[in-house]
Structure formats: C-alpha cells, structure tokens
C-alpha cells in the first residue's frame, strides 16, 4: 500500500502530463492544469514544514548549546523579525520593505559579487597549460576574452597591413566564431544528451522502474 499508492499517483500524473503535451484535445489540457495546480498547492503547503524545520533545528542548537550555536539566535531573530514586520505592516511598504531592500538585497548582491573572485581563482587553476587539452582551453579562453574587449582588435591592427585587410576585427571574429561554432556545438551535444536522460528518467519513474525517490530501492 505504502509503495503502490505513490507509484499509482506518479503513473497517473506522469501519463496526464505526457498526454497534455502531445494532445491538445480536452480533457488533457484541463487535467494537466489540475495536476500543476495540485503541485502548487502541495508546494505552498510544504513551506510550513520548512519553517518548522528551520525553527526546530536552531532552537535545538540553542537549547543544547551545540557547536556554533551562537549563529542560531541570529537566524531566528532575522526570521521572526522579517515575518512579524511583514504580517504587521504589509510586505510592499513599511519596515519589511525597508529591511528587504536595505538588508536582504545588498547581502544577496554581496554573495553574488563574490562570484567574480571565485571565477578568477577557478580560471587560474583551469587554464594551466598542463597538457595539450588544457593548453587548447587556455588558448581558446584567451582568444575569447581578448575578442570581448576593444584592445584585442587594437593589438591585431598594430600588425602592418592588418587594419587595411579584409578582417580588421579579426580577434573579435575569432572570439565570436569560437563561441558560435565549437562552443555552441558542445553545448548542444550536452543538451541533447541531457534531454534524452530526462526522457529516460521520466519514463523509468512513470512506469515504476525507478522507485528509490520514494524512499528505499524496492
């Protein structure tokens, strides 16, 4: 019972969604809409589980004085502060709006900004010319980066006759070609493979061949 009911729900919902995609005739668009609505309802309801988990984990940490428990009051105060002001004063103005714009948005932007430094450190490691493939990656990355900035073509035009040639913007053209042809080809290959993986995984789940996502492997 515990296994077959979820499998049955998965099968029915999966088949409805497949039919909704291929068959525009009623009742499938309507049924597909219902399935999506149900997912939205379930997902919306589940947010309370997330909140309860968050509060329980951090209150437990404070109670037991677990390692690094000092961060937990910050989390709880932050959560209750935002939640309380939102409920009391509304979400589109007042203290909630102020705290969202002045605290949450800048902190998110700060995290995002860290990406620039991480890209630099990761690129430094990835672009080491340790073998011929890494050297090829290094060369292509160098050309793409040079093609993205005006100085690339300016360097090219320093070569006598280059500015008057048929390709005065050769570095930009090479950079664009790398992005448009080999890079796009590689990306499409990954996408086609992933799409087939998606279809195969979906079929495995719909037909109950893959069950471990339900908990257990039988």
């Amino acid at each position, binding site marked *: 019972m515990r296994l077959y009911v979820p499998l049955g729900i998965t099968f029915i919902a999966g088949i409805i969604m497949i039919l909704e995609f291929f068959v525009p005739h009623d009742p499938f668009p309507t049924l597909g809409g219902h399935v999506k609505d149900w997912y939205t309802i379930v997902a919306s309801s589940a947010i309370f589980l997330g909140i309860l988990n968050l509060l329980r984990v951090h209150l437990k940490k404070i109670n037991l004085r677990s390692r690094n428990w000092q961060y937990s009051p910050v989390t709880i105060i932050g959560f209750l502060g935002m939640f309380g002001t939102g409920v009391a004063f509304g979400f589109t103005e007042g203290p909630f709006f102020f705290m969202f714009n002045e605290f949450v948005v800048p902190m998110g932007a700060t995290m995002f900004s860290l990406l620039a430094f991480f890209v630099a450190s990761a690129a430094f490691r990835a672009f080491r010319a340790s073998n011929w493939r890494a050297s090829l990656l290094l060369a292509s990355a160098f050309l793409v980066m040079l093609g993205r900035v005006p100085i690339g073509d300016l360097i090219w035009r320093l070569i006598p006759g280059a500015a008057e040639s048929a390709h005065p913007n050769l570095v930009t053209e090479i950079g664009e070609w790398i992005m448009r042809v080999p890079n796009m080809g590689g990306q499409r290959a990954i996408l086609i493979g992933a799409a087939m993986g998606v279809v195969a995984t979906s079929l*495995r789940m719909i037909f109950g061949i893959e069950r471990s996502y339900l*908990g257990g492997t039988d």
Partner: protein
Amino acid sequence: MGRLGLFLVILIGPVPALAAGSAGPDQARPVADSFEAVDSPNDAGGVIELSWAMSPGSKLVDSMLVTRSKAGGPENVLSVVSPVSTSYRDTTVANGVRYSYALVPMLDGRRLAEVGPVAASASAQWIHSGRSGMLIITVILAAFILYFIRHGRKGGELYIRQIAGLSAVDDAVGRATEMGRPVLYIPGIMDMDNIQTIASTVILGRVAARTAEYGTPLMVPVSKSVVLSVAQEVVKEAYLEAGRPDAFQKDSISYLTDDQFGYAAGVDGIIVREKPAAIFLLGAFYAESLILAETGRSVGAIQIAGTAMPSQLPFFIAACDYTLIGEELFAASAYLSREPKLLGSLKGQDVAKLFFMVVIVLGVIASTVGQAWDPASEIAAFIRNLTHVE
C-alpha cells in the same frame, strides 16, 4: 504617337484615383484585404483566429468593428479594435458551429464598407502537429528502453562504460569516514518539479546508504520545503535498509532558505564551519555553483558535482574533482544500483542516442548535399521538421 500615348496615360491615369479620393467613404477602397478566419491550430477548440492586412493607400479610419454572426442569426459586435490592428482572436466560439465574421471600418461615427464576410468553425485537435516529431522520438526512445529492460531482466549482458565521478562515490564517503568528518550533500536549488532535483534525490538515497553503512555523518541542507520532505524520507529509508535506523538524524536534513544567495551563504557557512571531507553537488544549479564549489575546495573536500545546466558545467569542471556532465547525472541511479532493469533502461537510452546521432549525421549530410541536389534537400527538410518542437 508613342510619346503622346505616354503623355495621355500620365495625364489621365491619376484622374480615377483623384475621383476615388474625393468620393464618400462608402466608395473608398477596402480598408483591409486578405481578411481570413481560421480555426486556431493545436488547441482544444473554442478559438477562431482572424487576420487581415491593411490596404496600402486606403483611407485612415478611427477604429474597426469585428462582427460575428451565425447562419440566420443576428450580427453581434465582438470588439472594437484599433485601426492598425491586423489580427483578432475570438475565444467565445463553440466547436463545430460555423461563424461569419466581418470587419466594419468606422470613420466619424459612420460605418464604411465592411470587409468580408469570411466564415470558419472551431475544432479540437487530437495531436499537436508541432510536436508530432517529438512524439515519434519519445516512442523510439521508449521502445529501445523497454527492449533493453526486458533484455536486462532476462539476464542479458549489459556493458555500461565507467563513469569516473560515480565510481568515486564510495571513495569519497570512505575518505570522509577515515578523516572523521561529515559528508555534505547539496541537491541543487530547484524544487521537486525539476527532473534534476528528482535525479539528485535518487542519488542521495545511494549516498545515504553508504554513509549509513560506514557510520559517517551526512548533512543535507536544502532550499525548498518539498525537497526537504523528500530528502528526509529518502535518507530515512536508506538508513533503515542499511540496518542503522538509530544513526538517522532527521535534523541533519535541514531547510535553509528559498533565496538563491541566502542559500549559498548558508551552505558556505556550513562548509567553513563543519569542514566536510566529501561534498556532493548534484542537481540544478545557477550562479551559486562556483561559490559553493570554490568554498568546498578551500576546505580540501573531495567534490563530486553533476548538473545538466550547460552554463554551470565549466565552473564545476574547474573547481570539482569529478563532474557528471548532463546525462551522466540521470544515469547515476542505474550505475550505482547495478539493478538489471535500471541498467537496461540506461543501455536503451544509449542505443537510442546512437540512433539519433546517426539521424543527425544524415541530416547534416543531406543538408550539405541538398545545396546542389534537390532530393537531398527534401530529406533534410523532412528531418528538420521531425526534430522541430513547438
């Protein structure tokens, strides 16, 4: 004579046009032409699409009425549209009923000569014509998968190439066990309606089985409440199956936040504080991928990443020890479990991929040869239509 004739044509030619221009609105040329009504394609019916083109040089009107009537019925004004509109969708029709439509230009509150009528009826379609190619592809793929599942169940030999990232799962958990540090599993930032998250929770079950077996702490911070529930259930079942229900800690699977960078900050904090020896980054990731992977690298963790997001793969490849690229993420469950029916489905997927690779190569050849030979061009067009999905 020739010059005189030309002179007369130039002289007389504009006269009718001038006459038309000075005539009343009812005598003016039609405001719109090419007016047609068609059943909206690929829908459940109930919609008729009207389209027209503005006549060049026609009188500029104030607005246009779209009128509709049934056979023998009264004329109803459906809508007043702008004079520059060229289409209208009637979504209030019943299937199978024939309706007549007309366009009535309005100028200074007067009705000018109407355009039309044209007639059409709405109907529902059983197959989406723009997706029939996809349907064929899905059927072929499903046929290969089902055949090889059957083959696997019968005990047929199924060779699956080695995937380094998946072979390293045991090593990563073992390393964490030896170092006495936890394993961190990050199932991406998307919800359970994303197939990558589903694939990730399947792998989580396999990883949890190993951590249960080795007695290694497992931490699973998630960013979606539904994923929290599923992950808790999957890990709990894995610990039960491993005979270690006592070792299962519900709070080790914790909800952080739905916010993308809030989640990244929370996971970074966990990585820096707990210093996990093995980190799994499997699922759907966006800009936070490199932030997480670089932080994991900074604490010396062995990292196994996998995603089907092409834009994030370079980051994982640069920062992680092993990366599952695209389809390998979806193959993980079968690869790790070694169950014949799952391996069969994987084999079927690979054979279907080979089939589609052949189709792609044929399409490229046909398209190239088709530049000089029409039959090849038609074959290329057929393959293009087959693979085009609306």
